[in-house]
């Protein structure tokens, strides 16, 4: 049961995180380090990491038709493996309840913060706020799933969630580069 307590701890971190507070700021060593850990874990070690200047550019990159689906598929394969591992450790109902709570909490908090960040940037785009919240909720879910499966704290999904916790939004790989808003 200890690992479901780790999921509960993640809910608290999601609630306290300064979602999207650092988007558009220059990338520092810590952000590049966490992004590098995430890429390495996903099988894309050494890929260049680019910052993203503003919300319109972030939307264009996230919606780019030439995005590289390989990273999404790699995350999905890993998610399925983690789900198998987690369901072998926990009863299904409490596991799903814990994961749902993590996702719901992240979704609501991230949405409020994304709407605030967009308004502060003078961008009126309800759909973009929702997409940002969806990305945050998904990252929290993946980190919670890794925790429930008993993965190490430095799991790549933990590294991805730590980017959101640092106020960033990893937008995925486009044209051979990780785009980190």
């Amino acid at each position, binding site marked *: 049961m200890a690992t479901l307590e780790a999921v509960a701890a993640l809910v608290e971190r999601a609630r306290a995180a300064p979602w999207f507070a650092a988007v558009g700021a220059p990338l520092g060593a810590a952000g590049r380090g966490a992004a590098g850990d995430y890429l390495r874990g996903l099988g894309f070690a050494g890929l260049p990491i680019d910052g993203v200047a503003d919300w319109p550019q972030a939307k264009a990159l996230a919606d780019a038709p030439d995005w590289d689906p390989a990273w999404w598929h790699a995350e999905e394969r890993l998610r399925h493996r983690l789900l198998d591992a987690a369901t072998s450790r926990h009863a299904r109902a409490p596991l799903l309840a814990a994961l749902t709570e993590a996702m719901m909490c992240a979704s609501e908090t991230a949405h409020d913060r994304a709407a605030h960040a967009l308004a502060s940037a003078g961008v009126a785009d309800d759909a973009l706020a929702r997409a940002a919240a*969806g990305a945050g909720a998904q990252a929290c879910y993946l980190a919670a799933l890794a925790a429930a499966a008993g993965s190490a704290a430095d799991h790549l999904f933990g590294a991805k969630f730590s980017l959101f916790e640092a106020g960033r939004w990893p937008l995925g790989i486009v044209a051979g580069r990780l785009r980190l808003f």
Partner: protein
Amino acid sequence: MTEITPPQIATADALKSAPEEFQDLVRKIVVSHAVNELYGAQVFDEPAIQYAPTPYAKWLTCRVAMEEYGHHVRFKELGEQIGIPADDMTPEKHPPLSIFEFPLKTWEEFCVIKLLADLAEILQVEDLLQCTFQPLRNLARMTMPEERFHAQFGKDFCTELCQTPEGRAKVQAAIDHYFPYLPPFFGRKGSKNNALYRRWGIKQRSNEEMRADFIARARALVEDHLKLTLPTVPEAA
């Protein structure tokens, strides 16, 4: 049916002192919304994430799925406050509406579901905005902005898909497939249940009025806006 002046019930607790028939009708409609919001999230929204064409569309769909699930949670919480067991508000205890029996297969289908099925949901929620059971009225007001966003999501993505001949054909095929399942959502013509709902002021409009309004609004979207064809469906019995 005898004319009555419907009571205005302000709280979940006050429902206990309302007439038995009023209580039963409120419970029935709360269960229906709680179950169908969850069915929708499970059958359409969650599977759609894999079909969405870009990360932006995937994340937006993920958020929409969370919002639909959140609606289920809100109706379920209200249901528990008025004494409905939680287990009675999950899909396991209720056969699905026919539209939920077809697994989603494409992104175009999902966009059409949002365009038209969420329009049907908007009409159902609009009808609760003047409901005499005020907690249900408040819940309708709370969920309405998100329901409107979901329908707009469907309209925006269908509009985008219709920019190419291939996309137009796929959207039309999805409309042809799913639209016939939607008018029956509004129930039978001359329904006794609907008459009871209106008698108690829980609902405002007849099934026939709702269905006619839905078809008119769907036609405006499909034929006037998308320049596609809305299938003709037989009038419900």
